[in-house]
């Protein structure tokens, strides 16, 4: 596997890391127009750094659910084509708007990922869904948004065990979410995001045709 066009390994300040080209967002290290994609702040970067095929490619259309302040989605937009960023909380959305102002292809939407009908009139069919929502029923959210994926499109989810149930064993939670996912997706890869993100499981899946 190789990294998508627009993502590279590069040494900045003596530290090797992934980089993309774009306006800096969160005080990350930069080298010319390249800026570090900090793996301790981005679950997607962990997957890319481990050579996992995520489906992120130059010019692909992306729907990002749970964009928060825009840390990860800013890198996605540096690489990809039209990028739709859904975030439900107003405060991080204010930062996300700032990130989007510096990018031509990043469209912020203050919407609830559990209610896709409220943005289906804006979001076109996409090649990739990235889901990072810290709420319960993460599997259901992925199923509800499956309609946005083109045939063969991919879903990258980071499942946060603590959002489902803080008291349960993370492994049991992951299993349950994966089971839900499998009713609409074919799971291609699962990867623990330790040590960068505790109790998170990265999942790459492909849409099953209806």
């Amino acid at each position: 596997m190789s990294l998508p066009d627009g993502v590279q390994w590069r040494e900045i300040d003596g530290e090797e890391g992934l980089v993309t080209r774009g306006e800096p967002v969160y005080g990350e290290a930069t080298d010319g127009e390249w800026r570090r994609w900090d793996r301790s702040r981005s679950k997607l970067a962990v997957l890319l750094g481990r050579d996992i095929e995520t489906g992120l490619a130059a010019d692909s259309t992306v729907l990002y659910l749970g964009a928060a302040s825009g840390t990860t989605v800013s890198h996605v937009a540096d690489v990809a084509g039209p990028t739709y960023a859904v975030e439900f909380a107003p405060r991080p959305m204010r930062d996300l708007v700032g990130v989007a102002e510096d990018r031509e292809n990043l469209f912020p939407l203050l919407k609830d990922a559990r209610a896709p009908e409220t943005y289906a009139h804006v979001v076109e069919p996409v090649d990739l869904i990235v889901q990072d929502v810290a709420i319960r029923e993460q599997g259901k959210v992925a199923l509800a948004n499956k309609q946005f994926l083109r045939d063969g499109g991919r879903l990258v989810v980071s499942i946060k065990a603590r959002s489902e149930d803080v008291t349960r064993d993370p492994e049991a939670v992951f299993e349950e979410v994966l089971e839900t996912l499998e009713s609409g997706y074919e799971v291609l890869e699962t990867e623990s995001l330790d040590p960068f993100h505790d109790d998170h499981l990265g999942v790459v899946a492909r849409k099953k045709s209806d």
Partner: protein
Amino acid sequence: MSEDDSGDGGWFAGIAPNETDVGATTIQEGSATTPQQWPQRAIEKGFVNNEDEYYEQLREATLTAARQAVEQREQADDQQLIHSIRALDDCQRLANELTERVAEWAGSRDADAEVGIAYIRELAEREPTEPVEERIIALANRIVDLDEEVQALRTLVEHSAQSIAPNLTALAGAELTARLIAQAGGLEKLAKLPAGTVQVLGAEDALFAHLRGGASSPKHGVIYTHEYVRGTNPEHRGSAARALAGKLTIAARIDHYSGEYRPELESELEKRMERIRARDNA
């Protein structure tokens, strides 16, 4: 057009290019059952000429929508203002009821008793000499406390009305501003009401009695407390209420959509009122 009305048109259905504010509204409030190839659809519908133009339009509209929605969600301050004015009304009502009760009770024993906060304050200062007097004085102290709370709430209402709705507050005063926002359910809702509704906010009973038939239509609701209505000859009060409601509606819209203070509203209203009141001398 029928396709667009089905609820499955894109966010751009029925709007012209560069109508960013309208686009922002449909992005925030619209919906569709399924996603479509919106860029192609927008080109087919003649909304834009090519994909680049589409994404440019989309970018402006989503940015505007997100900014507005954030502002709106964070500006829940108007809900706090509604609670404040309601608490103020409750404290005032309780203080009035207790004042009457205490004045009546004290009057059975003290020839100088009268209904009023001055007498209550004086009563509260006294030293009780026997059990009944002890209760009367204790109640008087409760009233003094309530009255102080009313003053504190009034100060709060004045400050927050001023910052939430500077134009409305300039025209209507803080308390009436708060009451109008409370009646409407929020500043945004108030800004979206037609002036005729603002005119009779708070007079819903009278309005529905009128609509059922029989009763005459109400001329004013809570705006009655405004000097421009109350201080106008009854013959012209309807006109005064209509003119005031019209300006208040404009003020609410400026407060909600721009937030910028426009002093000229006040002088416009003043001139209009002068003309209405001049009819008396005609």
